[in-house]
C-alpha cells in the first residue's frame, strides 16, 4: 500500500489526489404500495451516503443483503437517479448535466455484475456481446470494433478463437472474464464491480481477482468493489465503507478497519468471517436477530436492536459519521462516549 492511501478519505476534504468520483449525501427512497387503503411506505434504500474514489484505487463497499450496496451501484452507473444528493465525476455533477454530456461521461463508468451466467446474453456470440457497447456509443467501424474486442479478449486472458463462441461454452470464471472485458470496452475510468467473484469457486476466484488487480494497475482504473466477503475486501481494497440499512456506519482505510474495527457492526462482521489460521481469528461476537425491515427501520441508530452496547440514547438519536484520530470514521454513540471496549487484533 502506498503512502497516499494511508491518508483518511472523506467526501468533503479531498485527499492529495482529487477523487475521480465522489458522492455527497446520496439518498434513494422507493415508495412501496402496501395494499389498498394503506399508506404508501417509503423504503430508504440509501439514506445519506457520501464517498469518494481516487484514480487507480479501490473502494470496497461492505454489508449484508438489504444494506443498500447494490442500490449504490445502480446510482453510480446512472441506471437510476437518486432522490437526493450529488454525484460528481471528474469534477462535474452527473445529475445536473444535459443529456448529451451525461451520455458521454457515463461511458467512463462501467459495471460488472455478480452472476456471469445471468449477465451475458446466451443468444449472442462473445464477439457481439463485447462490441455492443461500441455499436451503441462509438463511432468505430466494424473492423476497428473487432480489433478492439480481440485485444481485450487477450487482455483478460482469453484466446482470439473465443470471439465466435457462445457464453454457454465457457466456465464461470471465463464468463466473468468476458464480463470484465465488456466492462472495459469503453475505456472506463471507474468500474463498479457488484460481487464480481461471489459466484465463483475458490481457485477461480483467485484467478479473477488477480486479473482485476492487474488491469487496475495497467489501466489506472478506480474500482468500487461491492462485496460481502471480508477476506477478499481486505486483500483488494484501499478504502472500505461498511454499510448497514442504507447508512454508512464506518468508513476508512482498509488497514485501520481490519486491524482496529470500531463500530460494533464492523466488529461483528469481522468476527463472523471464518478464518483458516487460528491466529487470524478474533473473539466471536454473535449478533442476535436479523437485519430489520428497511420499510420499517428502528428509530435512532438502526443497529441498536442487535447491539449489546446500545443505551437509551441510541434508541432515540441517530449517530452521524464522525472522524476520529488514528482510526476510521464511525457513526456510533458508544464510540463517541467511549462506552465500547477496545478491540485490537
Amino acid at each position: 500500500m502506498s503512502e497516499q492511501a494511508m491518508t483518511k478519505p472523506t467526501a468533503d476534504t479531498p485527499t492529495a489526489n482529487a477523487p475521480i468520483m465522489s458522492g455527497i449525501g446520496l439518498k434513494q427512497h422507493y415508495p412501496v404500495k402496501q395494499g389498498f387503503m394503506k399508506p404508501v411506505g417509503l423504503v430508504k434504500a440509501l439514506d445519506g451516503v457520501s464517498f469518494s474514489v481516487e484514480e487507480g484505487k479501490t473502494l470496497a463497499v461492505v454489508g449484508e443483503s438489504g444494506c443498500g450496496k447494490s442500490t449504490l451501484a445502480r446510482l453510480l452507473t446512472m441506471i437510476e437517479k437518486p432522490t437526493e444528493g450529488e454525484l460528481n465525476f471528474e469534477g462535474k455533477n452527473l445529475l445536473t448535466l444535459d443529456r448529451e454530456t451525461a451520455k458521454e461521461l457515463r461511458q467512463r463508468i462501467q459495471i460488472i455484475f455478480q452472476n456471469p451466467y445471468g449477465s451475458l446474453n446466451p443468444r449472442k456470440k462473445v464477439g457481439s456481446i463485447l462490441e455492443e457497447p461500441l455499436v451503441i456509443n462509438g463511432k468505430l467501424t466494424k473492423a476497428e470494433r473487432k480489433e478492439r474486442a480481440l485485444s481485450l479478449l487477450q487482455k483478460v486472458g482469453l484466446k482470439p478463437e473465443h470471439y465466435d463462441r457462445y457464453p454457454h461454452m465457457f466456465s464461470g470464471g471465463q464468463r466473468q472474464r468476458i464480463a470484465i472485458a465488456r466492462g472495459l470496452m469503453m475505456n472506463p475510468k471507474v468500474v463498479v464491480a457488484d460481487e464480481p467473484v461471489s459466484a465463483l469457486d475458490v481457485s477461480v476466484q483467485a484467478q479473477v481477482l488477480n486479473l482485476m488487480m492487474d488491469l487496475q494497475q495497467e489501466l489506472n482504473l478506480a474500482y468500487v468493489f461491492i462485496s460481502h466477503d471480508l477476506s477478499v475486501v481486505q486483500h483488494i481494497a484501499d478504502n472500505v465503507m461498511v454499510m448497514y440499512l442504507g447508512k454508512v456506519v464506518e468508513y476508512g482505510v482498509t488497514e485501520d478497519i481490519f486491524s482496529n474495527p470500531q463500530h460494533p457492526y464492523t466488529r461483528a462482521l469481522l468476527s463472523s468471517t471464518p478464518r483458516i489460521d487460528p491466529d487470524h481469528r478474533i473473539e466471536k461476537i454473535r449478533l442476535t436477530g436479523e437485519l430489520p425491515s428497511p420499510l420499517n427501520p428502528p428509530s435512532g441508530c438502526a443497529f441498536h436492536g442487535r447491539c449489546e452496547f446500545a443505551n437509551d440514547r441510541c434508541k432515540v438519536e441517530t449517530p452521524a459519521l464522525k472522524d476520529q484520530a488514528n482510526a476510521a470514521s464511525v457513526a456510533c454513540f458508544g464510540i463517541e462516549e467511549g462506552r465500547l471496549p477496545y478491540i485490537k487484533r
Partner: protein
Amino acid sequence: MTETDKSLLKVHNLSVTFGTHDNPFTAVDRISFHVEQGEVLGIVGESGSGKSVSSLALMGLIDFPGRVTADELRFKDTDMQTLNEKARRKITGDDISMIFQDPMTSLNPSFTVGNQIMEAIEVHQGGSKKERLAKAIDLLRQVGIPAPESRINNYPHQLSGGMSQRIMIAMAIACDPKLLIADEPTTALDVTIQAQIIELLLTLQREKNMGLMLITHDLALVAEAADRVVVMYAGQIVESGPASEIFKAPKHPYTQALMNSLPESAEGQNRLNALSGVVPGANDRPDGCLLNPRCPYATDRCRVEEPEQLGPPGRQVKCFYPLDESGRPTV
C-alpha cells in the same frame, strides 16, 4: 479406516455414475470415509467435485439414470444396500437427516411451517395432533426462533433466509437423528447469519451427540467447525485427516493450492496464488491423477498412473509425492 464402537456411518468405495452405459460419467469415484458419533466431518471441494452427489447417494436420493454402487454402505450395524425401499426410508429421515443449501426453495410455499414440521413428526413418530404441535413448538424454540407459538403459523415467504434455515434445521432434528448431513447450509446466507446458523448446528450437534457431515466449499468454515476433513476433487477424495493437521500442513497439492488461493493466505502480497485451470468436466477428465494438468509438481508418472490412497488410516492422501511439513513434494 479405523472402525470403532462409535462409528455411525461407514462408506467404502462409493461410486455414483450418470449417463449411458456406453458413455458413463462417474460423478463420485470410489470414495471411502466414515463418520463417528459426536464428531463433525467436513467435506470440502469446489463445484463439480461430487460432494453433494455423494450426500444425495447416502440419502438414497439418486434417481435413474444415476447408478449408485458401493462395497460397503453401513449405518451402525445395518447394511443399507440390502434394505428394501421402505426400511431404508425408515433410516433416512429418522436416523439420518439432511439440510439443503437453499432454505427458501426447500420449504413448500403452500403450507405453514408448523404444518411441514408436524408432517415430518407424523411420518416418523406419530402421536396425536396436539402432541405433534407441542413438539413442533418445542423444536422451533430449540433452534432459536423467537415467539414460536405465532411463528408456527407463518408461511415460508413470511420468513427471512436465516429463519427458513432454522426451520429446516428444526425439521431435520425433529426425529432426533444420529447423523445430520448439512449440504452447504449457509451458502445462501449473510455472514452474520451464517455465523449464527453454524453456531446453532454445532450446539445442537454437541447437545444431542450427533454425527454431523458439513459439506461446503468454504475452507475457512470447515477449519473452524470440523474435527476431521475430507477434501474432494473431481469426484475423488484426495486427502483426509484431522482438521488441525490438514490446515496446518496439507499433504495434497490440491489442498495446498486451495488454501494458498484464499486472500487470507496472501497477506502482504500483491497477487493471490491462483491455481490455473478449472475442475475438469464430465468429458475432459485427464488420464492418471485427475489434478495433473493443474498441479505444479506433476511428473510423467502422474500423467499416466493413478495414485492410490497412501498413508496411515485417518490421515490419507492420494498423491505419489505427498507434501512434507514445509509444503514441498517428497520424491
